[in-house]
């Protein structure tokens, strides 16, 4: 239900009773505007609720705003526009004068964020580029996702303060409060991809697209469940998700599914509009989006196993090839089949290593491999921290703050902190992350660092054999990746006319 018609003028009317003057003022303004050859949209705040609501894009495109109300009509939305604000009777009495005054008014304050980011800018005639439209939808998802990463990541990180296995009731460092922190943090982080997909979809298809968006995002993290015994699709089975990349795909599929359905069903009688919005769109779009997502999730399990055997095959190829593979895989799809393959291989080799015992070849290889995987996972969030500190003026305030929080997430091996940054600019941020992670992984293997813990980031430094070399390896990765990231943001900044790209 994209509302993209724009108007010369927009107005909001309201009166205490919400029956008479609100609508008389609307009529008066519409007649006066028509007499002047101007288009107008009047939002009414009546007893039956707000009708004919103006959108941020319409606020942005309007030449002037008229508020004629004796009650609150959320006039703060109109900040930064040429505006007159009067009682409702003034619009009934002298609508022409009011329109002239509004057009002559000087804007006060700045446009609200929602308005300035709204599309449909009528003042610039050029059509929005496809790239920009995609970026805008993506950003809507990222900005909603960011708070989940921060809340979930920090809570998880805090739980590690009791010990990296404090959530495990059979472990010696078990603490029930820490376990609860990890549960809460884990839930918030699991919501990241669904929220990303849902709000990409919402940006495209508005509210009806939220349902297919959330569902697509959930499928992106759970994958296509298959029964381990029969090998067939089974609601009780397990699947391999495809992480945030799947969330992005799912969000776009869900959003455009709703837009497509709106076109398809536009021939239906208008009195079925209500039914369409709450019943048909969500139902049909969720069904089709769900099927598509499950369909493309199917191969994820195969990719996952394929990548694992690929990695195993590289075990003897020396530090550079192996480190490069680990680094690239860890920073590639974050939570997807490739990233998981690296991490799962790492923990599997570690388990074998711990069983074999200190001093054995297996132990040495397994713990070294784990250290490389951990390093590769720690680097991406720290690259963002480095970049927002060194290249502060090239980042928005929001990104800057998220980058600072990523110090905590990076140091505790919570790679997800880098996802919002990668989502915004998969190219070139993903290759930059892969490069940084690879450097850290290669050096870790080369330095012969051994990490007997599967997680925990720098909290496990005391048990890491060669921890100072490990820090050095990670720092090298962060430094290279961070500098590349700052260079990219700097170019972007200059290309945008020396303004921060939001």
């Amino acid at each position: 239900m994209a509302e993209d018609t724009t108007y010369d003028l927009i107005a909001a009317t309201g009166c205490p009773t919400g029956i008479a003057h609100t609508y008389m003022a609307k009529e008066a303004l519409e007649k006066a505007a028509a007499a002047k050859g101007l288009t107008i949209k009047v939002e009414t705040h009546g007893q039956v609720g707000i009708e004919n609501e103006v959108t941020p894009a319409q606020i942005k495109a309007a030449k002037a705003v008229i508020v004629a109300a004796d009650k609150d009509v959320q006039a703060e939305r109109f900040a930064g526009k040429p505006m007159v604000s009067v009682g409702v009777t003034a619009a009934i009495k002298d609508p022409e004068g009011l329109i002239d005054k509004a057009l002559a008014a000087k804007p006060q304050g700045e446009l609200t964020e929602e308005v300035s980011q709204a599309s449909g800018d009528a003042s610039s005639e050029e059509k929005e580029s496809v790239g920009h439209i995609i970026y805008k939808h993506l950003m809507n998802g990222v900005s909603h996702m960011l708070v989940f990463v921060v809340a979930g990541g920090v809570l998880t990180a805090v739980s590690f303060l009791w010990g990296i296995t404090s959530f495990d009731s059979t472990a010696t460092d078990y603490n029930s409060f820490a376990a609860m922190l990890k549960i809460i943090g884990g839930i918030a982080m699991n919501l990241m991809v669904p929220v990303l997909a849902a709000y990409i979809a919402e940006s495209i298809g508005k509210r009806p697209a939220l349902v297919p968006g959330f569902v697509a995002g959930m499928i992106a993290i759970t994958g296509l469940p298959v029964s381990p015994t029969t090998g067939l699709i089974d609601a009780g089975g397990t699947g391999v998700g495809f992480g945030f990349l799947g969330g992005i795909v799912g969000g776009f599929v869900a959003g455009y599914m709703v837009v497509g359905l709106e076109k398809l069903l536009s021939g239906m009688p208008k009195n079925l509009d209500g039914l369409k919005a709450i019943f048909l769109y969500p139902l049909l779009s969720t069904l089709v989006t769900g099927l598509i997502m499950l369909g493309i999730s199917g191969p994820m399990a195969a990719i996952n196993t394929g990548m694992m055997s690929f990695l195993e095959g590289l075990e003897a190829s020396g530090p550079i090839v192996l480190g490069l593979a680990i680094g690239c895989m860890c920073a590639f799809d974050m939570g997807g089949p490739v990233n998981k393959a690296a991490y799962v291989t790492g923990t599997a080799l570690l388990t074998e290593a711990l069983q074999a015992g200190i001093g054995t070849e297996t132990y040495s290889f397994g713990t070294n491999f784990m250290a490389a995987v951990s390093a590769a996972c720690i680097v991406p969030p720290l690259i963002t921290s480095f970049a927002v500190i060194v290249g502060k003026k090239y980042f928005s305030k929001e990104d800057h703050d998220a980058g600072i929080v990523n110090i905590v997430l990076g140091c505790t091996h919570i790679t997800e902190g880098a996802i919002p940054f990668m989502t915004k600019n998969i190219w070139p941020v993903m290759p930059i992350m892969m490069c940084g992670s690879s450097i850290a992984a290669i050096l870790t293997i080369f330095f012969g660092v051994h990490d007997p813990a599967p997680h925990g980031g720098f909290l496990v430094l005391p048990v890491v054999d060669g921890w100072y070399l490990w820090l050095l390896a990670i720092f090298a990765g962060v430094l290279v990746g961070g500098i590349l990231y700052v260079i990219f943001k700097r170019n972007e900044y200059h290309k945008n006319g020396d303004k921060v790209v939001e």
Partner: protein
Amino acid sequence: MSEFVPASHVYVDNPATTVDEVLRFLSQTAVSYGVANVADKVFEAFKAREAEGTTGMMGGFAIPHAKTAEVSTPTVIVVKFAGAVEWATMDSKPVSCAIALLIPDDGTQTEQLRLLSKVAVLLMDADFREKVLASSDPQEIAGLINSGLES
């Protein structure tokens, strides 16, 4: 033609000369229709609305309204006065016709509430105002409003 405003809701040659008298008359009339029980409560609601801002319009019209839980059904009453009633209007002219709206306060009956709003919007039409002022036939005045609601 819809009969949102029956001819029996239109009064001509009403002797009221002050706003209070008009509002009193409207309140008692509402009770006589059975859309309200206590005339005083309706009167208070009319007065409260006038206190928030006059309902005097222009061209000799006023649109007093009472929103109260006392009212059970959205209702329109039209009164034309024998003389002129002093009312704070937008053009400072006295009022010779009041179109009163009785509004229940429960947020339901949306369709009827919309019709009340349409009655109010009719007042913005100079042609409509002229015709109502010119007529003294309740049947014709009710017809003007009802046909206005259909357009």
